[in-house]
């Protein structure tokens, strides 16, 4: 079908290229430069979709992102829901459908790239309309770094929708010259198709750039489709323009009813007429210019209905000259039609001459005045002021770093907009420390200023027929009517914020761009209050919808979160390890041999550690180097036990509590010298513990001579565990006397390993398994080589690499708790049976005060115990509850505690668990029950230490 509403000439479109697209199953053509909306209008299509609650046909109301109704679902090139046809740039092969209020997300992964980029500037200008362009040029000529963002595919702003002269030249030529100069100025970045959607503190502005959407199927796969610009500007000029405001009347939502200025934009920018015969309904002068332009282009404009008592005489005369009747003192009281408006009911206002009449037409153009786009100014915490002449909120104050220029201030004529742009650009440049050069004279607009002021009318007087549904729509997308607003005020709501939430007006994709001001006016009218005393609703980001894909950017897939690995990681991968995520670290979980399942592999690894020798990569453990004269006393405060008495060359285990006395971390403390210690932390708490130390050092005890430095990644750390560990170590550390007498438990030695030309190492005799064990520390540079050397040296003893699961089983057999598994921020050292690690002699330490609290000394606190299922093959699920009876009583069931760890033990030849149980240590020998599915599994309470209670294995 041919494009019957496309004019033979005019518009900023490439008529030589035809683009095929499909809408609601129908094939049509348009041109580069079109939006989906303009191409549809060119094809005579006004009905887009249906409304969300009432299923009423809805069309295209506006030409830009303020449009409340033209929601479409894109199907091809890639499914995307809830876009407005007015913001979708047409491309070849586009397939779209109109939506009944809601769309669907793609059920396949989005192949497009999205990214983000930071940019810094002296002056950011939002909006490349006349005011913004002048502001940007003024700032740029001063030499500052300038960023200009504009939502449209080309600069010009409101000038794109008119045909005006600036001085002697068409405004488009003037725009092109300024853009060329800006683009050619070093330090200036001009971003089109870029919407500033959020303004935050300190000049931080987020903007979304649609980089390849308009290319459709030709979009390059390696270019980011959309980019979030993270802009930090010293000064910001908002030249965001104004949105035309509708007037509410009955059946104001039919397709074919459009804002007058938008129809003018469709004419001048796209060479499209909105229909064949139109009625224009206005409260101000601007719609006359639309009527005249459209009539000149061939639209049959039947009448201009002006709500003001008198029409502007010059404009009215120009209308008459074109055969357009002008009716002052009249309003539109309703419309007829179904999928398209077919007639408009017109009536005189009280006191005006005339009779009600219905005028046949297929187009109704409406103007209720203009709302300055103050969204971003409001986001910047700028106060708004009600301008009763405009019937709109305008910026009400000057902000130190945010200026507003152009019609965003409420200025209605081009000459004022240009002057404001110049002033704002100059002020911003000066504030940013630049002195702009002398400027050329600003051009003078050929368009006349308004003859007479507009009147403010939120809705046409009159009520719906009794019993009939209200069709006076305020928010089209939410299907919210005047009656809905009145229902809110009748319910006693006075605040606009409450009315917004009650009616949902302003919460759809358009965020109330065309409905918000009207709602405020209706509420004020109904409550009999002045709008100047009403607080407008808060504008919040985003100004226009932003997809989650764009916000996620490239933080997807392998880049979603950093994966931290040790130097030995490639070896683990090659050996077939499965990995466990611990914080951001990948730790080997277990190393299955071919055909082994997890249980088999873990039993084998455990057996090796208890009977032969096994090796683990514990390099992820946090390590903090502490230097200074006061480290000993600092650690005395940090740990529950005494550290200052530790001798150089020795190691002590320590528990750390919060001020509430609850365990936050544990680890070993090594004394390297009188004034130097090295402490280890759990893998997941390395940064937390360092921050904890710094917090105390910087805020409470700055007098202490203590310096804490993370060395976590400097060291590779390998526990070498098992009865043959000493043999393996002796083989690789020829200078070290490894005998028990010379190198005792909880001691450390520095030595040189027989690896390459010799690798310095620190060996610590500590054990987290109860077995003879050495922890070998070398720099991460040497980690892989030393790991391989240990594997080679241990080969004849059957050395077995093991992972975190086996580590967990071995320590659980010994009743050693793991912070974060046995503890959950409600567990004290005493609950863990570690009173021995809590000093009774120290005057003070963090958490000490809390141990005396009644709550901490209750006898029925949950305490760490072992649980042995009566059936030795049953493994309890971790997290399962513990109850006291073999039959569940009616809820609420008294819970005694829960299972914290549960494993199958090679050494015990059975399953076992650790649990925290109320008064657990008084229940040793008792039978308790663990609900698992529909069963209650009987378990026997035991001490937490289940293996080698006398510690005989420690020395090998």
């Amino acid at each position: 079908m041919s494009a019957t509403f496309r004019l033979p000439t005019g518009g900023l479109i490439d008529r030589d290229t035809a683009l095929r697209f499909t809408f609601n199953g129908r094939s049509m053509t348009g041109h580069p430069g079109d939006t989906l909306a303009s191409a549809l209008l060119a094809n005579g299509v006004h009905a887009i979709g249906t409304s969300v609650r009432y299923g009423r046909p809805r069309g295209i109301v506006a030409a830009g992102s303020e449009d409340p109704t033209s929601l479409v679902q894109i199907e091809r090139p890639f499914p995307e829901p809830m876009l407005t046809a007015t913001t979708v740039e047409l491309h070849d092969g586009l397939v779209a459908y109109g939506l009944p209020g809601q769309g669907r997300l793609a059920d396949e992964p989005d192949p497009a790239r999205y990214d983000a980029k930071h940019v810094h500037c002296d002056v950011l200008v939002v909006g490349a309309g006349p005011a913004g362009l002048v502001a940007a040029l003024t700032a740029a000529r001063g030499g500052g770094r300038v960023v200009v963002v504009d939502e449209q595919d080309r600069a010009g702003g409101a000038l794109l929708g008119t045909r005006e002269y600036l001085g002697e030249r068409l405004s488009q030529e003037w725009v092109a010259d300024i853009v060329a100069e800006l683009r050619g100025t070093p330090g200036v970045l001009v971003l089109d198709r870029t919407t500033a959607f959020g303004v935050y503190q300190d000049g931080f502005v987020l903007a979304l750039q649609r980089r390849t959407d308009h290319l459709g199927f030709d979009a390059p796969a390696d270019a980011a489709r959309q980019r979030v610009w993270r802009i930090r500007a010293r000064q910001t000029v908002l030249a965001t323009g104004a949105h035309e405001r509708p007037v509410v009347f009955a059946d104001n939502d039919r397709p074919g009813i459009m804002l007058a200025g938008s129809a003018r934009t469709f004419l001048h920018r796209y060479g499209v007429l909105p229909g064949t015969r139109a009625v224009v309904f206005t409260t101000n002068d601007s719609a006359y210019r639309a009527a005249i332009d459209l009539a000149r282009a061939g639209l049959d404009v039947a009448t201009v209905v002006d709500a003001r008592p008198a029409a502007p005489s010059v404009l009215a005369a120009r209308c008459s000259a074109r055969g357009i009747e002008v009716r002052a003192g009249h309003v539109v009281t309703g419309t007829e039609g179904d999928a398209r408006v077919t007639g408009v009911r017109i009536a005189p206002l009280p006191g005006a001459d005339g009779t009600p009449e219905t005028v046949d037409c297929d187009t109704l153009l409406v103007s209720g005045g203009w709302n300055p786009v103050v969204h971003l100014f409001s986001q910047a915490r700028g106060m708004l002021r009600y301008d009763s002449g405009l019937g709109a909120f305008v910026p009400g104050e000057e902000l130190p770093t945010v200026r507003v220029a152009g019609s965003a201030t409420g200025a209605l004529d081009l000459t004022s907009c240009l002057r404001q742009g110049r002033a704002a650009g100059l002020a911003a440049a000066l504030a940013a420390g630049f002195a702009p050069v002398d400027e050329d004279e600003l051009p003078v607009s050929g368009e006349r200023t308004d003859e007479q002021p507009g009147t403010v009318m939120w809705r046409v007087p009159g009520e719906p027929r009794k019993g009939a549904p209200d069709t006076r729509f305020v928010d089209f997308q939410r299907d919210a009517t005047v009656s809905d607003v009145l229902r809110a005020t009748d319910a006693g709501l006075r605040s606009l914020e409450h009315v917004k939430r009650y009616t949902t007006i302003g919460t759809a994709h358009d965020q109330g761009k065309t409905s918000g001001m009207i709602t405020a006016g209706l509420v004020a009218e109904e409550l009999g209050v002045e709008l100047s005393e009403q607080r407008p609703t808060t504008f919040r980001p985003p100004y226009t919808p932003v997809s989650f894909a764009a916000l996620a950017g490239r933080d997807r897939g392998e880049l979603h979160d950093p994966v931290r690995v040790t130097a030995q990681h490639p070896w683990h991968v090659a050996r077939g390890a499965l990995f466990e995520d611990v914080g951001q670290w990948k730790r080997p979980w277990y190393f299955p041999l071919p055909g082994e399942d997890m249980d088999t592999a873990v039993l084998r690894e455990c057996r090796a550690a208890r009977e032969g020798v096994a090796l683990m990569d514990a390099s992820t453990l946090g390590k903090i180097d502490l230097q200074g004269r006061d480290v000993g006393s600092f650690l005395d405060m940090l740990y529950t036990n005494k550290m200052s008495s530790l001798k150089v060359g020795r190691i002590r285990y320590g528990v750390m509590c919060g001020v509430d006395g609850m365990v936050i971390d544990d680890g070993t403390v090594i004394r390297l010298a009188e004034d130097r210690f090295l402490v280890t932390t759990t893998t997941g708490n390395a940064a937390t513990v360092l921050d904890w130390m710094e917090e105390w050092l910087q805020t409470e005890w700055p007098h202490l001579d203590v310096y804490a430095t993370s060395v976590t990644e400097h060291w590779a750390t390998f526990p070498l565990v098992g009865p043959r560990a000493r043999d393996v170590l002796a083989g690789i550390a020829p200078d070290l006397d490894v005998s028990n007498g010379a190198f005792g438990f909880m001691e450390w030695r520095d030595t040189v390993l027989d690896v390459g030309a010799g690798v310095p190492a620190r060996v610590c005799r500590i054990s987290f398994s109860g077995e003879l064990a050495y922890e070998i520390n070398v720099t991460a540079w040497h980690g892989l080589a030393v790991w391989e050397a240990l594997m080679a040296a241990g080969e004849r003893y059957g050395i077995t690499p093991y992972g975190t699961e086996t580590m967990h089983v071995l320590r659980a057999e010994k009743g050693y708790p793991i912070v974060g598994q046995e503890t959950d921020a409600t567990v004290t050292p005493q609950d863990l049976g570690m009173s021995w690690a809590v000093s009774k002699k120290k005057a003070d330490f963090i958490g000490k005060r809390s141990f005396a609290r009644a709550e901490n000394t209750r006898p029925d606190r949950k305490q760490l115990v072992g649980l042995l299922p009566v059936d030795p093959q049953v493994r309890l699920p971790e997290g399962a509850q513990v109850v006291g009876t073999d039959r569940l009583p009616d809820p609420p069931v008294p819970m005694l505690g829960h299972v914290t760890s549960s494993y199958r033990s090679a050494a015990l030849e059975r399953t076992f668990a650790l649990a925290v149980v109320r008064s657990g240590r008084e229940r040793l020998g008792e039978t308790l029950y663990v609900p698992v599915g529909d069963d209650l599994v009987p378990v026997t309470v035991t001490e937490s230490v289940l293996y080698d209670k006398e510690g005989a294995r420690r020395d090998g």
Partner: protein
Amino acid sequence: MTADTSSRTSPLTAWADRLADLAPALTAVERPFLTQLTVRVSDPEAVVAMGEALGVAFPAAPCTFTRGGGPFGDVEVLWLGPDEFLVVARSELDLRVPVEDALRAALGPARGAVVDTSAQRTTVALSGPHVRDVLAHGCAVDLHPSAAPTGTCVQTLLARAGVIIQVVDAEADMFTVLVRSSFAEYLAAWLSDACVEYRAALS
């Protein structure tokens, strides 16, 4: 004693070829095994003495680094905090022990700390016409030459990894990024991904 150098591996050994492939959009080369010591000191005399021991004065201005030569060859001192510095000896020799000894001697009885953190981070030299573009995709710090001249040194996030960025030569678009060893592969993967568009534009 000096540790064996033949048996060392660096965090980005496996990434050398993939990083090299990013040229000419981005020249990215790991400079591994540099001697690095974290120094905590605020006593002014000790600061001067340490600088003299290395042949390079410690940076006085925040977020800068100094560079000089002395008994340990090329040495850089990076300002990391009001009393925190990172000494980096650019030599290929393992100078950890002698530099630590020299710094401790210079510190004398003053309050402070000297810690060998050489393997804690690796360094990646970045250069090329798109280096600022690539960094701007993940770094919020203004690296424009007017804001970050040669000698700038900042601790910040690059994507989701903590890094130290040195502006080695602002006019020649040369930077050094120091990254924790465990994050190095993540950062390399991120850098290569950030280059996709610039590489495509050049091909």
